[in-house]
């Protein structure tokens, strides 16, 4: 186990260094003389890297605020959206993955899930907003960020209704990735010889499923945690735009439009780092569920 975690931690560290190099290169574009030639760009890149090593991400060219301050204001909103979306993804995705994993139920559900998978996030968000406004008579967020009534810990029904739309949009995108991971893990272990051996030993189908199959299926989901988080972040980026939610992805899009590279780079680094860390944590949690005695 220790060897596995060390190896994965090494991979994570290398990936984080690579992401930092990329972010510093983007941040270097903000230097006034970065466009004056390759040498000037390399010098600016070196300076940006030095700043990143000291957690100094530079300052916004538009507002003059420290990039780290902007990020610390906006990132928690996105993280809140993503983690609340993760809750929905697990609540919806796990039953779908387990119940529609195989057999006639899957054949019946497959066309519907295919159609839902083809719906772009922004269309799904607008569809949910339409249903909420016209059928449920909920308020559809307008304005920007907190002005739109979007708070992560709602105090009343109105705030809850406003928050549910972006969270549902993000959660449903995560649910698609969750159910896929579970179905694939289920398909992988289906019909493996050890199941026949266990039945010959007198174990019931229920015991085999709950004690031996389920841990492996959930290990599959944990192994794909990075992919699930990536789906959630991708959905959050669009949901923030559709519902005027002032999170980090919204900040990213507006900063790119304004060519404010000092803000763009740390947001990109944060997204890459969070996905990589989720992948690392998922793999480490999955390992004990599938490891044999010798591996552990």
């Amino acid at each position: 186990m220790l060897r596995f975690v060390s190896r994965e931690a090494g991979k994570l560290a290398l990936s984080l260094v690579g992401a930092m190099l990329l972010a510093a290169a983007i941040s270097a574009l903000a230097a006034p003389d970065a466009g004056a030639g390759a040498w000037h760009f390399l010098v600016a890149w070196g300076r940006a890297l030095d700043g990143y090593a000291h957690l100094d991400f530079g300052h916004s060219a538009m507002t003059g605020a420290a990039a780290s301050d902007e990020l610390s204001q906006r990132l928690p909103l996105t993280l809140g959206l993503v983690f609340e979306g993760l809750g929905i993804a697990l609540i919806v995705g796990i039953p779908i993955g387990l119940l529609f994993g195989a057999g006639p139920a899957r054949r019946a559900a497959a066309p519907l899930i295919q159609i839902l998978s083809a719906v772009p996030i922004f269309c799904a968000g607008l569809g949910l907003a339409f249903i909420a406004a016209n059928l449920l008579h909920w308020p559809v967020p307008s304005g920007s960020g907190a002005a739109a009534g979007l708070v992560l810990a709602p105090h009343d029904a109105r705030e809850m209704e406003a928050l549910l739309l972006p969270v549902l949009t993000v959660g449903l995108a995560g649910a698609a990735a969750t159910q896929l991971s579970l179905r694939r893990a289920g398909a992988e272990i289906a019909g493996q010889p050890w199941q026949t051996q266990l039945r010959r030993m007198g174990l019931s189908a229920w015991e085999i499923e709950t004690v031996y199959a389920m841990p492996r299926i959930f290990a599959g989901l944990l192994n794909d945690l990075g992919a699930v988080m990536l789906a959630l972040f991708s959905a959050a980026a669009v949901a923030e735009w559709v519902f005027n939610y002032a999170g980090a992805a919204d900040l990213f899009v507006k900063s790119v439009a304004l060519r404010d590279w000092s803000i763009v780079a740390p947001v990109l680094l944060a997204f890459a780092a969070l996905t990589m860390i989720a992948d690392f944590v998922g793999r480490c949690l999955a390992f004990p569920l599938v490891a044999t005695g010798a591996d552990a």
Partner: protein
Amino acid sequence: MTMAVTSPNGTHALHNALRVAGWIGLGLIAVAVSLSDFLANAPANATAIGPFLASPSPEFRFGTDILGRDLLSETLHALDATVRSALPATAVTLLAGALLGFVAARLPRSLARTVRGLVGILASLPALLLAVLVIGLSTRDWAAVAAGLSAAPFTFVRAFDRARLEERATHSEYARATGISGTTLLRRDLVYEFRDTILSSAARALAAVTLILSTLSFLGFGAVPPHRDLGLMIAAARPYFLHAWWMAAFPAAALVLLILCARLAAGLDEGERA
């Protein structure tokens, strides 16, 4: 809950049928796109064709928008614009993702692992944000290339991993043992890879880039008026769609149909990332 003991083989026939349906759908879309000027009742962006914001009727089957444009004609023209941007983007994804991924796997081991790690970093970012970044670094005119490049890292990683498996296959071991050079083996494997997977890879890339391109246009980073694609049509409908649902519903349905057909043609699993 019989997942663990039920074989998934029963779903193969369904997958094949869905794949054929996907190709038929793409074929019909190609026909509609190539005949869009003929099928549409009005040229692109022709205003005051009918009353403003008229709901669907026998005269205007998809209704009209705030400027009195016929939405059926506009949807056909926008579908044409979407497909025309998506095709070069698909080519970029196939070249920068599938082809380079396959070739990179045959580089010397340490170099191949380094390249795989670097592209893996890009693959850990949402493709949409990557596309927005590429457009920010260039111009909106490069939206198709940006969409292709942003979909490429994921395709690269998949092609790379498949090529590594191929390299360890029995035929590769025999070939190396009999003195066949790595370049010859790569050429042979590329021909077989191209023959066996080009259609499904292209359909998969088409689904991915269509999704990215339409979202880019929705965010204001893609198509520029008057050349409206489906994403831009939906973005323009945003202020009105709560009351005039048809303004967003029909372009969205066309977009979903295109992505769905490409996903089915690629044989993607339900919920699988394109």
